[in-house]
């Protein structure tokens, strides 16, 4: 069976059938839970509001790629305007949340940069006196991280001195190309840390995943089927193990009984009809915006502030990793349309706290190619490098040709991901007037980039400019904070031991509803500064293993 035929499998449960586990969302965490629960013999139904990906719709190999991808594969659901997504009220946020509804989840449009959190990320209160320590440690999570890497098919090079010693990656690191070598040169001249990129993109064929061919269109869907997303890495195995997947199923409510235990979910099917899926356990894997949105929509009259929200923390502490980017152009050719994109090189030089810098915590940098001529022109699209108040003539006429000649094929981009500290004012609430295509309230994001983040970004921009100039840059363009950069949605149903201050325990079980679990990045107490998918999937695996081991002790309705 190939991955294209999978969509014909996975029928919904029989009417009124109670399954062991209903999972909301078929992205990275939901897919991990579904695979391992099904393999353990539990009956599993996954409800996904999007559809199976159509790989023929990914335009990366076609001439119209830059024209089509800025709409069809834009990571902002408000731009993409696909009815399978819900809209987001972004009138009260500095950063737009980015996401995608479909089998594989938002990773469909991720860069596949594969990074573990560092040991200090789990101990920020103990080390730096801010936020909270996690209930478990780097060492506790490491075995699950390594297991997930084998399931995902990660390529990389072990031995990075920015991490504790670890075993080899499943596949050799992808070529870093002229872009990566130039990025590394600047870091080397500054005497700073860099390392060849680790990516969830196998460099050799692996299961349903093909070897990367450096097409360079990772962020808009991989037409090669090489970027690892769970529609290819996990779902073929999960369906074989008996998991069932219902697409175009938008969950609108988690139902509970008189004892306050979850009894299942209600969802709107592809025909707009309400359906009920009864389950002994419910797992939410709908991302840091979708999960709190669903809890706030649930609970009924008994829970007017939303389900599992006796702490009042549902939706609060949203973290999105304020992001800056620096495009640097060089005289000599870098073939900078070639992938992976993805990270060719990364740096953790400024990851750890140094109080002399005037802020706490730190950053991760990733070096990427700059792409095709339309993107580097700065003339249209996300306006990353276009000042809103700028004259249009600055980007057109002779300036267009000169900008493209200087940048196209000759430039790289350093992305700077800053750790975002949790603040209760940054939150997800329900919009009072915006609704999705089923009439359900859209989420509204209330978010301000805080002073610590502003200082952190400026410090790192200054250092990055030093690095790219050390490598011979002839032009630099800075964007900070990038508005279209909320790829990482973290912290809105925080885990902890104290039910008065947290929503779930360290295993993802809601304090208020013990048979309701959350397994996405909503539960993270802090954000780290690395790309979170590796940690999301590892935490989901840890929670799932615990769920299987303790299944006989699990309280159910």
């Amino acid at each position, binding site marked *: 069976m190939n991955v294209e035929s999978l969509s014909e499998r996975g029928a919904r449960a029989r009417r009124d059938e109670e399954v062991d586990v209903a999972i909301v969302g078929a992205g990275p965490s939901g897919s991990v839970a579904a695979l391992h629960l099904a393999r353990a013999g539990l009956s599993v139904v996954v409800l996904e509001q999007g559809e199976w990906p159509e790989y023929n719709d990914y335009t990366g190999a076609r001439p119209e790629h830059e024209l089509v991808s800025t709409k069809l594969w834009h990571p902002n659901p408000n731009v993409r305007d696909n009815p399978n997504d819900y809209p987001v009220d972004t009138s009260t946020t500095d950063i737009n949340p980015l996401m995608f509804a479909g089998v594989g989840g938002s990773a469909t449009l991720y860069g596949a940069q594969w990074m573990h959190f560092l040991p200090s990320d789990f101990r920020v209160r103990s080390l730096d006196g801010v936020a909270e320590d996690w209930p478990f440690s780097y060492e506790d999570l490491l075995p699950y991280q390594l297991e997930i890497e084998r399931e995902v098919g990660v390529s990389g090079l072990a031995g990075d001195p920015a991490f504790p010693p670890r075993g080899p990656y499943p596949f050799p690191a992808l070529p870093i190309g002229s872009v990566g070598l130039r990025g590394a*040169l600047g870091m080397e001249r500054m*005497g700073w840390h860099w390392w060849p990129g680790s990516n969830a993109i196998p460099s050799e064929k692996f299961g349903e995943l093909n070897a990367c061919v450096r097409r360079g269109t990772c962020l808009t869907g991989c037409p090669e089927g090489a970027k690892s997303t769970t529609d290819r890495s996990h779902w073929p195995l999960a369906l074989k193990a008996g998991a069932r997947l219902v697409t175009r199923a938008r969950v609108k409510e988690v139902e509970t009984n008189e004892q306050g235990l979850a009894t299942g979910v209600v969802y709107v099917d592809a025909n707009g009809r309400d359906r009920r899926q009864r389950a002994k356990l419910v797992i939410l894997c709908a991302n840091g915006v979708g999960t709190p949105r669903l809890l706030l929509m649930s609970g009924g009259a008994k829970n007017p502030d939303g389900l599992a929200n006796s702490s009042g923390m549902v939706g609060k502490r949203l973290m999105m990793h304020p992001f800056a980017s620096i495009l640097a152009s060089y005289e000599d050719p870098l073939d900078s349309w070639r992938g992976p994109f993805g990270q060719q090189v990364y740096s*953790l030089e400024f990851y750890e706290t140094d109080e002399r810098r005037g802020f706490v915590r730190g950053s991760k940098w990733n070096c990427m190619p700059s792409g095709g001529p339309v993107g580097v022109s700065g003339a249209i699209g996300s306006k990353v490098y276009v000042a809103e108040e700028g004259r249009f003539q600055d980007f057109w006429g002779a300036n267009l040709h000169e900008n493209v000649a200087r940048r196209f094929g000759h430039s790289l981009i350093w992305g700077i991901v800053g750790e975002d500290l949790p603040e209760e004012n940054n939150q997800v609430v329900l919009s009072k007037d915006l609704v999705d295509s089923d009439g359900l309230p859209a989420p509204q994001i209330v978010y301000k980039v805080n002073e610590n983040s502003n200082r952190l970004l400026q410090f790192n921009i200054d250092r990055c400019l030093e690095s790219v100039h050390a490598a011979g840059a002839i032009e630099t363009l800075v964007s900070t904070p990038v508005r279209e950069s909320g790829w990482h949605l973290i912290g809105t149903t925080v885990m902890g031991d104290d039910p008065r201050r947290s929503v779930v325990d360290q295993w993802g079980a809601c304090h208020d509803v013990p048979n309701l679990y959350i397994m996405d990045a909503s539960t993270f107490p802090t954000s780290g500064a690395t790309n979170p998918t590796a940690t999301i999937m590892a935490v989901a695996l840890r929670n799932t293993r615990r769920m299987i081991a303790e299944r006989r002790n699990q309280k159910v309705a």
Partner: protein
Amino acid sequence: MSQDKTFLALADFLIPAHGEMPAFGSVCSFADAQKALDFRVDLKEGFDRGLDADPALSAEAHLEKLNKEDGAAFSAVTTIAICTYYMNPRVRELLGYPGQESVQYDSKATQIYLTDGSLGHVLARGRKYRPTPGL
């Protein structure tokens, strides 16, 4: 003025000849722009509005007006112009852009950073992370 003449006038102002690079109208036609527009039906309405020009205005003055008064129309016209241009085979040839190509490589080949000493320097600079045992 007809839509095609209006569009080509605007496109030639946006993308004139410069050095080796040809003007829009030297390599692309209005029919090419319409084909591009078929990929982005969401832009059609704005595109049509953007071509509803006052014949008394120059191309630059019309674009200036659009940019100030109808951002969606300005965006539609400029997006179609630039994307049509850089999809053109002759333009790509002049730029040296093969498109987002497939590049073959040997996954087991020894990478240069392992032999030229650069990664060795990173290792020699020592541990970067903060250990947390007991915390």
